[in-house]
């Protein structure tokens, strides 16, 4: 649905986006993740035809963003960062205006607007003046606007920024529901959001793509090996030797606390040693009090990737 090839955008001498290529397939929810100023908004503005790229090409729903901009714009629903709205208009009036602008046939307008108002739970404020709405409602009015012409693709720039935790949950829930019908590209710098919503993550930093995968795969890729954390009652020395002898185990760290020992077992990349570890401990008369996988969070991945980049560049 979205195909980006070697896209670059230069402001004066600074590249905001530098040679990025990625694809978003139909029905996917893809997260564009990166620190502030990484080029997320610029990428989205190019995809929504707000500004052209300096070089490279982008294809949205089968149309070129530069040459067939009007066609592209008919296919997308775009929620810009901070959701700019006309404060003097009423919610319903605004949605009607947007529906007309987006060339929704007049006989469909009312039913479509009603549907969007209901979907975004803004029924109670539909006749209120936008200027008097809270941030959460404004965000949902913005979302209703992106949906009003039933676009194939939704491009959402920081859809949950500035909301309180309850509102964030509501908006995320809504996005998740929308994912069933629409292809979604969203940007954020909030990591749990990506983990929760996205099937795929594109991490960009300083205008370049530094990683692209599913959130879980990213975690696997980034870990040097799988780490298991264990708490075991029994003979520490014996157990340690047994664990070290397991084939895929690279390293065992033993912390002796008398009767109870703590182990950190580092396995080779991709190897699952949990069952071997279990049977070896049992064989040596150990009792496992706790065994858990030390999962690396996306937060760590993000930090590692963006920091690694910095080390390379400096």
């Amino acid at each position, binding site marked *: 649905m979205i195909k980006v090839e070697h896209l670059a955008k230069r402001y004066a001498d600074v590249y905001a986006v530098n040679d990025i290529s990625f694809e978003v397939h139909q029905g996917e929810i893809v997260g564009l993740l990166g620190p502030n100023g990484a080029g997320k908004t610029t990428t989205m503005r190019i995809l929504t035809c707000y500004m052209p790229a300096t070089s490279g090409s982008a294809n949205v729903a089968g149309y070129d963003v530069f040459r067939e901009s009007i066609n592209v714009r008919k296919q997308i629903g775009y929620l810009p960062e901070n959701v*700019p709205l006309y404060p003097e208009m009423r919610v319903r009036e605004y949605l009607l205006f947007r529906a007309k602008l987006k060339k929704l046939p007049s006989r469909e307008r009312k039913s479509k607007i009603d549907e969007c108002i209901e979907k975004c739970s803004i029924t109670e404020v539909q006749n209120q003046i936008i200027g008097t709405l809270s941030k959460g409602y404004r965000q949902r009015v913005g979302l209703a606007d992106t949906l009003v012409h039933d676009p194939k693709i939704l491009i959402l720039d920081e859809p949950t920024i500035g909301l309180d935790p309850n509102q964030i949950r509501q908006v995320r829930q809504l996005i998740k529901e929308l994912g069933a019908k629409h292809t979604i590209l969203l940007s954020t710098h909030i990591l749990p959001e990506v983990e929760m919503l996205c099937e795929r993550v594109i991490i960009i930093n300083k205008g370049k793509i530094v990683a692209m995968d599913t959130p879980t795969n990213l975690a696997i890729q980034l870990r040097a090996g799988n780490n298991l954390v264990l708490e075991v009652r029994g003979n520490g020395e014996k157990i340690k030797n047994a664990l070290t002898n397991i084939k895929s185990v690279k390293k065992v760290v033993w912390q002796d606390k008398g009767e109870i020992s703590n182990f950190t077992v580092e396995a080779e990349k991709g190897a699952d040693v949990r069952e071997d570890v279990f049977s070896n401990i049992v064989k040596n008369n150990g009792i496992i009090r706790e065994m858990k996988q030390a999962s690396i969070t996306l937060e760590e991945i993000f930090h590692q990737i963006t920091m690694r980049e910095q080390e390379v560049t400096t």
Partner: protein
Amino acid sequence: MTSTGTIFQRELNAYFLSPIAYVVIAVFMVFSGYFFSVMLGLTQETTLRYSLAYTQFILSILTPVITMRLMAEENKTGTIEPLMTAPVTDFEVVFGKFLAAWALYNVMIAPTTFYIAFLAWVGNPDYGAIIASYIGLILMGGLFVSIGLLVSAVTKNQIVAAVIGIVALLILLVIGLASAGNEGWLYSTLKYIGTYDHWETFTKGIVDTRDVVYYVSFTALLLFIVVRIVESRRWR
């Protein structure tokens, strides 16, 4: 062009949802009423010619107040982004906004038609000259609005847009006035560029094609430039 209508409707509503329309109309009525009564008293002539000559100054000041928000506000609040990512062309947006501001301008001058009724009551006015004056007034409004729109498109600040717009319109008025009665290519050029000379022909009751062409082509040129400016975000 369908979007032009949509934009036009929204912009015109926005004027009447904010105090701008009412303030501008009220201020205009106060001054035009003052000039009308004073000139009528002075000249004892049943014509709008003299009072409308003065209204030109008021219009030069009030029109930029009408147009200042057109683009500047969208640039400032960022609403330009959802607007321009909707399937509308830059021209449709610019033209819709132009028509809305021009419509408000015409609403603003509409109450002055009451003076015609008054003149008809006290004497026998020359209706031909009055109709010509209004044609001139409306055409001049188009030019004024397009200048204001141009200034509004280059800034994010409404006050700046209004001030520069007022200065530009007054300059345009003054170069015509100052060149009156002088000879030479420079003066005749300035006189041609300035609005005053063209406008005066209308108040005399003459609808000259040259003056109509002046207003219409000048307005079209400015609108063309505004479209380019709006477009320029694409290559800036």
